[in-house]
């Protein structure tokens, strides 16, 4: 196996061993999606209107949950030093970690979303749009998140600051993603919004490995 795939496989294995990141992110997502209707009340028309937005925000928060450990674990126990001395460039290291994070959260959340859409009484068309928007948009969450995680990797309480740094940067993803669902509910074509979302995601995924690698390098010096 190439070093890149080795690292990817190991990160996924670690995520699945420690209680299963994917499982935990899914449960958190489901919990938030359940709590909000409990708080908002049982008005089905109301729930459908807010469903896209709430599920998108819930998905972002769920993905964020495991993000702070993306580099931190390897930093604290000295693995990151060893990875930095290996033949794998730090840019590819960052990409592998991002991908592992997306597979164990973003992708899983996307697969679960149609089920939660039921709770919010979304129409089948809106459910499909939600699914597509999460599929296109969650890579941006992992990518922007990786930048944030690399900036905070030396912080014991990184998990506290991370949301603060990256949520504002992710607001376009929420706007386009939830916007696409709203459009569908209004029987308008969501294509434009989805296109913008995909462009945002692509930009983030392209930029992120370089930014994250630069910031890891910075932190290794510390």
């Amino acid at each position: 196996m190439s070093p890149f795939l080795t690292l990817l496989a190991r990160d996924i294995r670690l995520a699945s061993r420690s209680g299963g990141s994917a499982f935990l992110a899914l449960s958190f997502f489901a919990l938030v999606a359940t709590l909000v209707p409990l708080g908002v009340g049982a008005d089905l028309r109301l729930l459908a209107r807010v469903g896209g937005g709430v599920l998108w925000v819930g998905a972002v928060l769920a993905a964020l949950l495991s993000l702070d450990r993306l580099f931190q674990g390897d930093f604290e126990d000295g693995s990151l030093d060893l990875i930095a001395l290996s033949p794998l460039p730090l840019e590819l290291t960052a990409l592998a970690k991002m991908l592992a994070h997306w597979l164990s959260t973003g992708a899983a959340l996307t697969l679960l979303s149609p089920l939660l859409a039921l709770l919010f009484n979304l129409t089948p068309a809106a459910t499909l749009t939600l699914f597509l928007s999460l599929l296109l948009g969650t890579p941006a969450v992992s990518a922007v998140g990786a930048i944030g995680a690399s900036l905070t990797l030396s912080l014991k309480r990184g998990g506290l600051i991370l949301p603060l740094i990256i949520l504002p940067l992710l607001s376009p993803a929420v706007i386009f993603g939830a916007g696409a669902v709203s459009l569908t509910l209004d029987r308008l074509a969501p294509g434009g919004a989805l296109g913008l979302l995909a462009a945002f995601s692509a930009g983030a995924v392209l930029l992120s490995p370089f930014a994250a690698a630069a910031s890891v390098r910075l932190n290794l010096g510390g």
Partner: protein
Amino acid sequence: MISSLTAERLACARGDRKLFENLSFRVRAGQALAVEGANGSGKTSLLRLIAGFLPPAAGRLIVQDASGDSDDADERGKKIGWLGHHDGLKPQLTVQEQLTFWAALYRGTVNTGALAQVGLARQADLPCRYLSAGQKRRLALARLLMSNRPLWLLDEPFAALDTAGQALMAQLMALHCGQGGIIIAATHDPLGLGNESLKL
């Protein structure tokens, strides 16, 4: 293989404090250098500087090998075997899994002998959280052997090891030097390699 590592008037700063200045030394193939000094004198910092994690505040580090001289930190990094304060092990993974992972990452060979060599053969399938401090150190040592790098940087190599472990460590270090490797070790104890030492 490296024929020598030379430091020329190195200086190191942490925050805005100078730790050391004008540090020059040369270590040749087959030699070991012990870095000594009181707590906080900058031993760990020197090792991180050699590894290229920390940029020197001044001075140069030059690696000389068959292809000539080079002061490129990235290139130097690819020649380094690292044994730091921390072991870089995951509690969830078994001893064997860790070694396989690092071998693949370093394009090393998974030498099944390595575990036996450090006395962990029986623990191969045990998750690392069940290892004691010294056993973890031994596993880190196995990884160092497997990485197959000529320049070893060791931070307090004898820490957490029992008497047998310390003897093993000393023996492997002698072997590495005997094969033409270079060792730079931060330590409070003598290395016992007929080595030179550097006081910080």
